[in-house]
């Protein structure tokens, strides 16, 4: 298989996904166009070299519908002859576009591709896409879609994590994100988002609360008790009857933040880099996707990690850094405990709890964050993974060259 390299990546800062968020006035197509433009300019991309462009979009409806990638490419001045597609596999979508590119280049069907993702959660609300998974009784009676927060609480109950445990994790996530932000460790990949009149709307991630304390978090109310009591607890207890109940412990402070943002990643083979005089920053070693028990919903990262490591012929100890999406605090905590990973090697600069989780974009953002941190620390390999709803997951291993 042909080597596939990451040549560059850019992302927008993440704005609070609310009506008063800094990026709320920016339509998602412009967020996507902004990262695509920046990537093109930074790397002098000739659109003719790009076989295809994929963006992860988890709510591909309304103004994020109708294959937003194609419109964003046109807006980003890639010319008329470039194709783009949207992809949705819940939260792994952004990483999946990178995996798609890896497959295209690796199999010789492309010299270069762009992956990435976009999500304006302030403008296209989470869950607004509808779906048979949610509402079709002929699906739900046998294969219920459990709200992810209820799954997170279920996983915490199964693993015995307490409210204090997860709050402690979140405090550290905030501290790290604050540290990375003030130290400028994100700056190399961040592009400020401007409005149509050239004014900068946001230059840094808006959600971070670096000084968050345990006492602050202890004040927050559990976010998923209502959904649990409405019936979802009762459904998961059918599969886990050894639990007396599901203690609802995840709050807004230990769940990923609702944000707006976009990112783009440039992938290519060796010949492409040479032709463009680009230096490859990392090689994609292996990628894998798997699905596991749908009721656990967020349990995919562990089996997909085992799968991708085996595909790469590596062991957990061969990985220097991990990015495991902080969809909820329990996800990386469970992962660390399962694989025996030091806290220092996972989510080095915080994660979605502090920075936010722009659904379709996050996977590709984490890939970039991992790469930047490998370079900063002078390390070699990173593994990036996210859980996707209904038990799915994708993982990619990268290695600096």
């Amino acid at each position: 298989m042909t080597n596939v390299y990451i040549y560059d990546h850019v992302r927008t800062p993440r704005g609070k996904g609310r009506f008063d968020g800094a990026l709320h006035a920016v339509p998602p197509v412009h967020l996507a166009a902004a990262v695509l433009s920046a990537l093109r300019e930074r790397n002098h991309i000739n659109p003719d070299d790009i076989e295809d462009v994929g963006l992860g979009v988890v709510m591909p409806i309304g103004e994020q519908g109708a294959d937003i990638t194609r419109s964003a490419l046109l807006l980003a001045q890639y010319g008329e002859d470039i194709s783009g597609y949207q992809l949705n596999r819940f939260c792994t979508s952004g990483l999946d576009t990178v995996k798609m590119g890896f497959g295209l280049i690796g199999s010789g069907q492309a010299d270069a591709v762009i992956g990435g993702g976009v999500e304006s959660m302030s403008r296209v609300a989470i869950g607004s896409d509808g779906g048979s998974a949610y509402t079709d009784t002929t699906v739900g009676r046998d294969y219920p879609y459990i709200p992810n927060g209820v799954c997170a609480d279920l996983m915490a109950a199964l693993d015995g994590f307490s409210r204090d445990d997860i709050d402690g994790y979140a405090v550290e996530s905030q501290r790290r994100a604050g540290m990375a932000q003030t130290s400028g460790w994100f700056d190399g990949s961040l592009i400020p988002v401007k409005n149509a009149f050239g004014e900068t709307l946001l230059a840094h991630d808006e959600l971070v609360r670096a000084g968050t304390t345990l006492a602050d978090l202890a004040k927050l109310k559990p976010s998923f008790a209502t959904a649990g009591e409405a019936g979802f607890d009762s459904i998961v207890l059918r599969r886990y009857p050894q639990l007396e109940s599901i203690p609802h412990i995840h709050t807004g402070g230990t769940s990923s933040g609702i944000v707006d943002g976009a990112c783009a990643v440039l992938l290519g083979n060796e010949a492409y880099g040479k032709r463009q005089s680009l230096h490859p920053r990392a090689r994609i070693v292996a990628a894998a996707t798997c699905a596991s028990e749908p009721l656990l919903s967020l349990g995919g990262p562990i089996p997909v990690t085992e799968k991708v490591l085996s595909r790469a012929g590596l062991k957990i100890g061969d990985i220097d850094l991990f990015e495991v999406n902080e969809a909820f605090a329990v996800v990386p905590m469970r992962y660390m405990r399962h694989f025996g990973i030091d806290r220092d090697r996972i989510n080095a600069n915080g994660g979605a709890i502090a920075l936010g989780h722009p659904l379709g974009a996050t996977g590709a953002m984490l890939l970039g964050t991992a790469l930047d941190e490998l370079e900063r620390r002078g390390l070699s390999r990173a593994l990036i993974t996210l859980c996707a709803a209904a038990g799915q997951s994708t993982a990619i291993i990268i290695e600096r060259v």
Partner: protein
Amino acid sequence: MNNNIHMEVDSEGIALITLDVASRSVNVFTNDFTAELCYIANALSSRDDITGAIITSGKKAGFMAGADLLDFVNVYDRNLSSVEASKIVAPAAQALRQLEKCGKPVAVAINGFALGGGFELCLACHYRVLIDDPKAVVGLPEVTVGLLPAGGGTQRLPRLIGIQKALPLLLNGRHVSPADALKLGIVDAVVPSADLINTARQWVLEHPGHQQPWDIKGFKVPGGAGAMAPHANESFSVGMAKIRRDTQDNEPAPLAILSCVYEGTQLPIDQGLKIEAGYFGQLLAGPVARNLMRTMFINQGAARKLSKRPAGIDKEPVRKLGVLGAGMMGAGIAQVAAAAGIDVVLLDTTQATADAGKARIASGYARDVKAGRSTQQDADTKLARVHATPDFERLQGCDFIVEAVFEDRTVKGEAYQKTMAALGSLPTGFVMASNTSTLPVSGLAELWPSPEEFIGLHFFSPVERMTLVEIIQGRKTSQHALARALDFVAQLGKVPIVVNDSPGFYTSRIFCAYIDEGMAMLSEGVAPALIENAARQAGFATPPLAVTDEVSLDLQQRVIGQAIADKLDPKFLRLKAQPIVAAMVSKGRLGRKTAGGFYEFPSGQPKHLWKGLSEVFPLAAHQPELQDVKNRLLYIQALESARCVEEQVIPEASDADIGSVLALGFPKWTGGTLSFIETVGPVNFVAQCDLLADQFGERFRPSMWLRERATTRQAFYPKPANV
């Protein structure tokens, strides 16, 4: 042809159609009725002299009920496929569709209650005017007997008022008052009786050629339908979770209704009606609807009407009731009796304790007032009927006495003596009843001068909420005493079952089998949460360890102690439960009353299983499958019920079923303990019991009697001859 529906056409061409099903007090759908409805719908379309129609009822009792459940209850035993079963109601559904599409305006003048199919007929009309009478309730209660409205109810109601307003009506089946019905928009007008027909007529005159909104091109379901409707998450995703929480997937009807609405409202109505028919067929061909119809509706209704009351004994309603003992049970009995209009002498050892009982009653009535179930005036009237006293002389004039003193032969005997002394001689027709739950009634009867007029009346706690009363006939109890006891239970608005005297009678015996099996599993090391979840998921009202905490462990200790003292047969000694009860009692963990039993009861917080349980009863390394835990709880009670039938403790299968559901919270979907055996199939039941006996002990071993019944296919409920 027209024996059930009459039509007259007036000078303005308006047909007045009167529904009056022959030889029935209430209109119901019969085959003849349906055929005539079809004929009428055809006449409305084809006759040029008819310009519109008004439908009303010729019955005084009400407008119309739905189908006759006696027509449906035997479908399961006919082994029909769901498609075949769906065809049973297809003609009626088609007749309603034809009526709706007749091309002329059809108004319905609803002159009384319209429920189930009766209200579906109204929904198929173009305009609904309802009589302003609180008794004229409307609604679609099919779900309560495990069915769904198959006359278009799941399709027309959401199209009429929107899915969000329709779903609760379809899913809880409640009866809707005229005022509510108007507010919801399920009727168009509520008017006094005198204006009913004229209002309908006026509307018909003003709306020539009227069509249902859903038959007009471009129709949209109000509020939207399908996955993208703004309410879709709440209605369908959360809606499904709520249903699955409430039914634990044991009752298929609510989810089938949600499916009808979700799928059907995205389609043209004719296709929606087909979906409705399909799901209805599935329900009707399945056992759960049969169980619910038979036990919860038909047999419970018959029990309320005292269908087995001894013949030839005059009714003598209780006018003045004596209640001995003003504790929780005595006060509860007095509370429901006074509410039923009976004067009550509530007697206890001191004025203070008697007054405390009356105060308990007062707070019960106050709760009703607060909840809007009764008025203050009503509560005052009821309370004034209760006379609290320590003075036995006050019992004079009572024609019925219920004794509810401490469960001890000596204490009860003394109470009887004092009563007798005060009464002097027994008035004609007088009956003495004991609310004992454990002591043999025949033995107590010997303490009363006239054992023939002595009977057991086992009420359940809390009396005001529990609808069942177990009537226990002692060896000498007369038919007169039984008839009076039945009449008294009916007077209280409760449901009687009749059993013969035997240790634990019927209900306590089945109850003990349940909690003892829970405790047996605990001692085997089964995770307590697994035991409790399995019970909840099987559909039991309260899990075994939780309910044991409610009734208290020291009571169990006393019952066991009494059984040992009485040298009862070992099967009544509760050998599996003994060590667990003893261990808990020795730790002072008696249940809720000591704020700790199997559960902890932290004040102001939900209870939870006691963490220390795993130290007293260490968890086994291997935990059983969920289904096995469920089965142990279901089978042991069913088996014990069958033994009660075999031993003639409970003569009627329907009483065994009703008692298990109403008194013990045995899962409703099963139709009761004996219907459960018929649901799994007697042969399969016996085989499963043998497997359980091999694994968990001989208490699961079925008797020869039960084996023979299974192999000779002798059902607890004989099939009707025509099936």
